[in-house]
């Protein structure tokens, strides 16, 4: 049990990544504070499973862009679960928005969901970790689009670019108090071809085969890395943005993809 005695706060536990994270960390003995927009109803099954594994779990619904709400939630949760040792900020809102025609409201929605909430959560968690002087970890679940344009949502990639700098900044400021901060630049997974459909970029055409092994990652892979970062093995890691993409971003256009022969490729 790598996380016994630790309390982990995971935001947007309702998401596919959130579910994988909560199950994996519960299995390692962590107590869980879970942000859930559905108030837990979308994750009833996962909650039951986590509790069967012996995890103490508290589910909260807050607007994680509002410092006051987040602060209140953390104060209340501390009574039940003890102070948060690990924050996993996990919020990934993708909405199409073009530079030329985009609406301000969509921009704000995407930026707030992905970047402002990351700042607010990190600030509030960081403040408490700093006061305790017992170290801590902050993990941002980010995206390969912190580096690679999407061609369909500039606000999304800008929000992830902002999170990358937030992680670096926080690693310096909070690192002085023994707190490690990381971002995981994750992707692609099954379904991303539809999610990031673009008229401008062919990035997701046959994307599975742009991963050199031609095997897509899953949110369980993400959860494994988050578990590592939350644990003792990551002691000397700080301020790192870790690209977890199976090598996807290293491909160049469609050069030497490992295509199966029936799709017309030469097998690599």
């Amino acid at each position, binding site marked *: 049990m790598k996380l016994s005695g630790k309390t982990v706060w995971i935001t947007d536990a309702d998401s596919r990544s959130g579910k994988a994270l909560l199950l994996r960390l519960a299995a390692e003995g962590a107590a869980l504070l879970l942000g859930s927009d559905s108030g837990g109803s979308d994750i009833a099954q996962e909650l039951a499973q986590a509790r069967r594994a012996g995890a103490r779990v508290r589910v909260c619904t807050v607007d994680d862009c509002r410092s006051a709400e987040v602060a209140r939630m953390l104060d209340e949760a501390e009574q039940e679960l003890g102070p948060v040792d690990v924050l996993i900020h996990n919020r990934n809102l993708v909405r199409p928005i073009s530079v030329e025609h*985009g609406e301000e409201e969509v921009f704000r929605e995407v930026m707030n969901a992905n970047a402002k909430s990351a700042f607010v959560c990190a600030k509030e968690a960081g403040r408490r970790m700093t006061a305790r002087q017992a170290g801590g970890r902050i993990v941002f679940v980010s995206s390969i689009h912190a580096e690679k*344009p999407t*061609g369909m949502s500039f606000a999304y990639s800008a929000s992830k*670019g*902002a999170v990358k700098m*937030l992680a670096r*900044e926080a690693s310096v400021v909070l690192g002085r108090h023994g707190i490690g901060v990381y971002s995981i630049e994750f992707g692609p997974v099954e379904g991303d071809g539809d999610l990031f459909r673009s008229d401008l970029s062919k990035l997701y055409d046959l994307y599975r085969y742009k991963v050199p092994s031609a095997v897509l990652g899953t949110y369980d892979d993400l959860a494994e890395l988050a578990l590592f970062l939350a644990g003792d093995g990551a002691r000397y890691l700080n301020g790192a943005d870790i690209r977890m993409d199976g090598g996807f971003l290293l491909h160049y256009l469609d050069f030497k993809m490992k295509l199966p022969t029936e799709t017309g490729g030469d097998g690599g």
Partner: protein
Amino acid sequence: MTLEGKIALVTGAGTGIGQGVAVELARRKARVAVSYNASDAGARETLRRIEEAGGEGFAVRANVADRDAIRAMVRAVADRFGGIDILVNNAALQLNFNFEHDDDAYDRIMNVNLKGYWQCIQAVVPYMKRHGRGRIINISSVHGKRPTDFDTVYAMSKGGIKMLTRESAIELAKYGITVNAIEPGAVDVGRQGTKETKPFVPPEYAEQAERMRRRNPDIRRKFPVGRSGRPADVASLVCYIASDETDFMTGAAIRLDGGSMLL
């Protein structure tokens, strides 16, 4: 390299880097709209220096956090000069709150530094499309890569600008518009301007560099080239990117820091 016949809009042109950029564009014969918000006196000084350099400019006030204000500004420039060929996004806030911004301070910085850049781009695109070409130059910062340790949200905004630049580059390429970013390191801009932006006005460069060397004999261990940056350094790179010689460059971010990021 002349920019004769080009029309440029520079935001944040009442102070510091923006002022240096506006004056240099005008010196190279572009007609320049000097956009400012808080710095009336600075904008007048920019115009004075433009005229002194034999150039043509006019000042237009706009808060780039406000879309309507941006649109009115861009219309005013187009009405006056007949179009816009070059946009230099430069107006930015830095509040120096480090990791302790309240929610409003966060919004304030992001609304100017990131949303403002985007909305200025959006507003000029129709004019550039009409000409079948355009140059958009985003003044970012080395803090798009390196943490500041003095303003977390400022750094976040610059991280966002990196991706805004890349996304805009691929989206607007079909109109002949290129979008690039410059990432200056420390630029000495004097002490003029609002408290919030801490910008500077370039007095006597050589003298300043010499002063710095005397004060700090170790300057080369901070800036391998032996001095910190000047608005003129940024201005000459802006002029190059704005020229017709850079058709194939888009989505790039050029670090301009005297090598300081390498140390």
